[in-house]
Each structure stands twice: as C-alpha cells, then as structure tokens.
C-alpha cells in the first residue's frame, strides 16, 4: 500500500485524461445545463437489450469511460426500470424478449419516455425481419425518440440525447 501511494504521488493521476475535444466539451456543457433545467440535475436511464448484437451496449458502456464520462453530467444508468425516467431500448425485439420488454416498460413510473438506439430497433439495418422478430420497437411500445446508427458512436449518442432532451 505504501508503494502504491509513493507511486501515486510520483506518477500523478493515470485515470484522468488531459486531452480535450472542444466539440465534445460543448456538448457536455449543453447536456449538463439541459438536465439541470429539466430533470433537476438527475436523469436516470434504464437500458434494455431486446435482441441486439451487443455493439450498442458496448457503446453505452463506453459513455462511462473518462473520454465521455456521462455520469459527471447527471446521467446515470440505473439498475431498475422503477428508478428510471427513460427506457433506452436496443435490438430487434425477439419473440422471446417481447413479454419482458413490455414488463420493463410498465414498471417505469410516469412521466416516462422510450428512446430507441441503433438501426435494429427500426429494422432498417441488415438484420431482417423473421417470424422470430417482433420489431420494430414502435409497434410494441410508444417510442419518443430514435438514435440512428449501427451502432451510433458515443458522441452521436450524446448529441442525439441532447436534441431529444431539448424537445421535451
């Protein structure tokens, strides 16, 4: 432990970034302001994968890395739909996931919004409709906003989220 602190003082903070992306910083600032104004600085998102390839989930995980650091802006991915304002849905809605997706949607307290992420959710991507697929998502639950891309990169997700938050 002593060695750890010795090195810590010598080498500085390794988990923080010195690089600054001006455009990204501007989006972050805007996002933080909008969330402060409309959600009292606390926006809770519950993510549900209804049959994606896991790339959309990987990009949402990337939102928490020090490059994007979404939690600093007041956005939190929560464990239960009952704690959430927004249901973020990815994937094509498989037959086996449909009851669970609807279940999660019903658990969200009002007011609630559904945001879909990725081309799978509108079935305009390369994954085609088969009888095992019950998508697009908006045929099953009301969708307030869609974030296109296969998968959208973290910056696009932030920009799109900002557009959506401004509109409500």
């Amino acid at each position: 432990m002593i060695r750890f602190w010795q090195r810590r003082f010598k080498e500085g903070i390794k988990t923080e970034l010195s690089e600054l992306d001006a455009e990204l910083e501007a989006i972050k600032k805007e996002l933080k302001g909008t969330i402060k104004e409309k959600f009292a600085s606390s926006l809770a998102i519950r993510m549900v994968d209804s049959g994606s390839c896991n790339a959309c989930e990987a990009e949402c995980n990337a939102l928490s890395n020090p490059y994007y650091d979404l939690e600093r802006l007041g956005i939190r991915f929560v464990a239960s739909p009952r704690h959430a304002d927004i249901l973020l849905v990815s994937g094509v809605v498989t037959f086996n996931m449909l009851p669970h997706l609807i279940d999660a949607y019903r658990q969200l307290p009002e007011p609630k919004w559904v945001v879909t992420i990725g081309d799978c959710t509108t079935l305009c991507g390369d994954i085609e409709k088969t009888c095992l697929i019950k998508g697009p998502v908006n045929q099953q639950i009301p969708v307030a906003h869609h974030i296109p891309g296969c998968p959208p990169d973290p910056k696009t997700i932030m920009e799109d989220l900002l557009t959506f938050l401004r509109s409500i």
Partner: protein
Amino acid sequence: MRLIARFAKNQNEVIDVWDERVERHSLDPTTPTIHSIAKKHPSAVWFERKMHDEFGIEIDGAFDNRPLLRHEHFPHIHPMIQECKELTPAPFHPYPYERIKGEGVFEVGVGPIHAGIIEPGHFHFSQEGEAILHLEVRHFYKYRGIERMCEGKSIEEALRIVEKISGNESIAYQIAFLRPFIEDEEIRKYHAILLELERLIHHLTDLGFIPNDAGFGAALAFCSIKAEECRRMMANITGHRFGFGGVRAEAKPIDKKGLENFLNTLQSDLIWFQEWITDIPSLWDRLDGTGVLQKQEALRYGCVGIVARASGIAIDRRMSDPLYKNFTPPTQQRGDVAARFLQRLDECFASIDLIRSFLDYRPTKSELDVSDGEYFSFSESSIGELFLYTYVENGKIVRFFARDPSFVNWQALHLMMPGNIIADFPLINKSCDLSYAGSDL
C-alpha cells in the same frame, strides 16, 4: 475427442464435428431420431435440445428433454423447417428449472433483464444461505433466427448479417465466414491484424470490468481509456469502431508507423498497469480461488478459449494456422477468476507482438473465390474457438450454422459455482465474459 459441434444439416442428416474428424448420421425421414451422446459429452445437451426445437428431431436416450429456444409462450412449431409469417404467442407453459430440493434450500432467479448495461439471459440459482449449490443458465432470449436469415443469400449478402451476430467478435465472424474463399497470405495477414486488435479491445474492457465487479473502479477507468483508444484505432483502420465491413477480400494500406507507435505506448501502459494491479492485496483477495474450473472438467465439457486456457488447456485455433508460425498461446493453471484475469493480460501482450509481426504485409486486392460446396471454417475470437458451417449450392447458402465459443462455455459455467457465494457470481461471470448474442443467434 473433443466435441466441437453437433447440428442438423436438415431434417434427414445430423453432422457431428469433432476435433479430429467429421461424422455424419442419416436419419429416417418419417420419424427423424438420433441417439444422444450427452452422457459422455455433456456439452452435447444444448446442441441436441436446439436440434429438437428447431428441426423436430427426436433425441433418443436424452436425460434432458426440456425446450431450449422455445420459451414459455412459444407456439408448437419448429422454426427451421416450418414456414411462418408471424408467431402468435401460445398460452403460458412453465419451464421446469433444475432444482435442488432439501430443507432450507431456496431459489434465486436473476434476469433476463439485468442490473446494468448487459445482454438478457436468465440465471437460476439454488441457494443454501449465501452459498451457491447449483446454477442453471437459461438463455436464448435473443434468439433472432440468424441461421435461417442467411439461407438463400449469396456469401456477400450473408456477410452483412454474419458480421452483426456478435458485436464483440465481429472481425472473428467475418474472418471465419470468408476463410474458405480467401487464400492470399497478404490479405490474411491484414485480417489477422484486425483480429488481434479486436482481441485487445475485448480483453482491455474485461481487464477493467473484472476488478470493477470486485469494487475496484480505478482499474475500469484506466482500462476503458485504453479500450477506447484501441476502438478508435479500429475505426481509423476499418472505418468502423467495431470493424463492421472491415474484413473483405482486400488488404488496405494503413499508417504502419502510427500503429507501431500506438502499440509501443499501449505496451508500456500495460506494463505499468500490470505492476500496479498485482500490488493491490484487497483486490486479489476477491479474485484468488474464486470460481475455479478444474482442468478435467474443462476437458470433459470441451471448453474453449480463455476459459480453457486459464485452466491449463492450450487450445487455440491460431496454433494450427501456418500464418501464425508456431504460435503458442500463454496459459494459466489454476482456473480461477485470478487466472482468467492474468490470462487476458498475457494475451494482450501476445496480441501486441502478433500485430507487430504481421505489419510487413503488402496492400493488395482480390476477389472472393466462391464455389459450391460444404465448408467447415474456424477462427479464434476473443472468447475462443469459433466454428462456422456454410453449405453453398448454386452460389446461394442452403444451410448456415454457427457455433459461438460461448455456446460451449456457457454450459460449463455452473461448474465454477459450488463453494462460492452468490455475491461472487457477477465476478465469475464477467471473468469468462461470454457472448449472449453469439450463443442465442
């Protein structure tokens, strides 16, 4: 002999793929039946249940006849052989879970929707207080019918679907799918660079998430920076952060100097990380001895990839590939979470060296040389050995089958549970980091 896959080519033929040979069984078309091999080869259970659900083939002598893909509301149809436009939900029929009975034993069901940004799947625990007695893994919530989706398509058309089976293994899927049609060594070297870069991204993500699940968040912050940088490098080279569309019949020119510098920085950062992380006793207290998979058990279940190599089994598709020139993967012996963590770290260094060795490739372009036939192709994804079967007739795919490394490893996950407490489950699960999308298809 290791069972790689057991699947139905159609209603009349079942193919067993072993590590040494391929066996074919013709079935009687009126009552298609095949004898179960699950008693000797436990990983055959899911293969046989899948075959039964999709093709209606009866499994003679099976000890597990429960449906696998057809969940509670699934109507009585076999989706691979019956035509249907729209499935209508059938009345609820409960699924009999594997249960341990006894005084004080209780059950905990987790999922399909989990507390976090992860894929859906169900884990059913039998508990005695904190201690896990048994775990049943129940998946296929993401069953999209990929195999059927690829039928009737040309290789190029199907490639667009195959690359989106599992986002974490996209490059590996593309390489395995195109392997029979590409022989040019320069192109294969270029593909190998992408494959190792994908492996780096996946391993780095896990090197952060495993300590994070043990409550050590700083490792996640550090490793997610590195993973993000590798992902940006992937976008630089292929034009896509996950490498969708990155593997085609061409070796594109890349900024080799830039990539070399990137690898040098990454290597020195990882050396720093290795020294740092191995010096944190409270973390290793959680990782050491947790979720042990014994070597004999891993062999019996035919485990592949990281899970097998961390238990001391040196299996790796890259070893038999002449392109990799006598490559031997690093291995660990203990088979616990700590071993799988160290295994990933060692493989990161190995991947960096491999990319360096392939950088001498020459950019070139060629055509896909597609001819009719049956193809058995492999690649080593970041999770393990990936197997694809493609049957092409008149330039169109008649049957496509994919066996993700996760499909085998998921079945061995319950072996790591006894002796552990339920709070360690996320840690053990993350240390294997298996794909749900790839296994569900």
